[in-house]
């Protein structure tokens, strides 16, 4: 499925959009990390929590649970808040 990558993380992917696989959001993120080592830890901490200011949308709906089921036709968008000085 298509995954939109926020600009600050395109240093890993070299592209704003990539393909990844996974029956759940957790599996998808692991597949992203397999393709782009180190990417996952910048978004998910060692306790499997979404880091602050990271947001993930599936088909336009914000998702917080990493066990959210995914279908191959789903569109996943990773958003990173930008604020502060």
């Amino acid at each position: 499925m298509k995954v939109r990558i926020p600009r600050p993380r395109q240093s890993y992917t070299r592209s704003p959009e990539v393909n990844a696989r996974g029956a759940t959001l957790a599996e998808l993120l692991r597949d992203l990390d397999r393709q782009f080592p180190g990417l996952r830890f910048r978004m998910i901490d060692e306790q499997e929590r979404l880091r602050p200011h990271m947001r993930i949308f599936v088909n336009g709906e914000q998702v917080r649970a990493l066990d959210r089921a995914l279908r191959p036709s789903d569109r996943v968008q990773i958003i990173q808040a930008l604020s502060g000085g």
Partner: protein
Amino acid sequence: MHRQLVVNGGYVATQTRAKRAGRKPARIVILVGTRKGAWLLHGDAARRRWRLDGPHFLGQIVHHLVLDPRDRITLLASTSTGHLGPTLFRSLDLGHTWVEARHPPAFPKAPDGQPGRAVNHTFWLAPGHAGETGTWYAGTSPHGLFRSEDGGDRWEPCAGLNDNPQYREWMGGPQDGTPDGPKLHSVLIDSRDARHLYIGMSSGGVHESVDGGRNWAPLIEGLEVVQGLDASEVRFHDPHCVRLCPTRPDRLYQQNHCGIYRLDRPARRWTRIGRNMPPEVGDIGFPMVVHPRDPETAWVFPMDGSTVWPRVAIGGRPAAYVTRDGGETWERQDRGMPDSQAWWTVKRQAMCADAGDPVGLYVGTTSGEIWASRDEGAAWSCIARHLPEIYAIEAA
């Protein structure tokens, strides 16, 4: 006859009983970590001409940038951003190229149902003992100690500290630390024994291990705490910066929230040498710098710790203070610095010394300037400006 081999300040110095010739480093580089990236400030042997190289990691917070003095090749940078997880980068060519660490410091996954900790950033990087090539230590925020044995590529938690129930209690939680998080800092390795370690913890005190980090014990006797709190409580102690004298590893100096101290092992009680500072200046500050060869000499950079703790140069008149007798007396050093309306803040990692003779000193301000002295603080000049907020500087 050669004495102790000292790996210090980026080059190997051997001391002999015969006269020691004045030496200047063949090359010197100041490693600058800032809120918006890293810069390398390359100096000539005379330390008069400087060339700025950067930015590296533009836009990222670079908490600490350290060159391994053992090989003068491995350069580690601790980075994070306001919105992304932390990581470490390694360079083997002085910053021309960088490779991300495959396993940066991270706490273990907690059992289901239990809250777990997550590294917010690596605050302090320390190369390991000279005899343990490739080893590094990292102090994190929240408090955590990590060790690498492969030059900073993979890191393992030091469970003896991180998972010790008593230490977990002393470390407290995020609300117990500095506004930007509690920090484990001042990771020191005794040059005589790789297993002999010291650490400092903001809100948590100074601690010692003699078995490579498996077991730890507090070293807080004689240290004062904020008025009204119980000094016997480890968690109330707030060391800002602890340094170990390279040529006398039994001597430590400390800039604490509550004063300047010295400890001579095997004693366990710190002496507040800051009481010998001029009373109108006091002994509040953040950095502590020790002479690379003379254990009687150390420098501090006093800050205003009155009222709401402005943390700026006292009266807007920045100055370093030096002791050359182990803290018995102190001398103000401000020649060349502004004498008014210079409200500098210098973070605990933003002052350092090189290993030249005479020693060069370097101060980085939160207003983005680097000031240097080629003569152990007698005179100062600005060697870089217009940088972002400086978090840390190291001379290599």
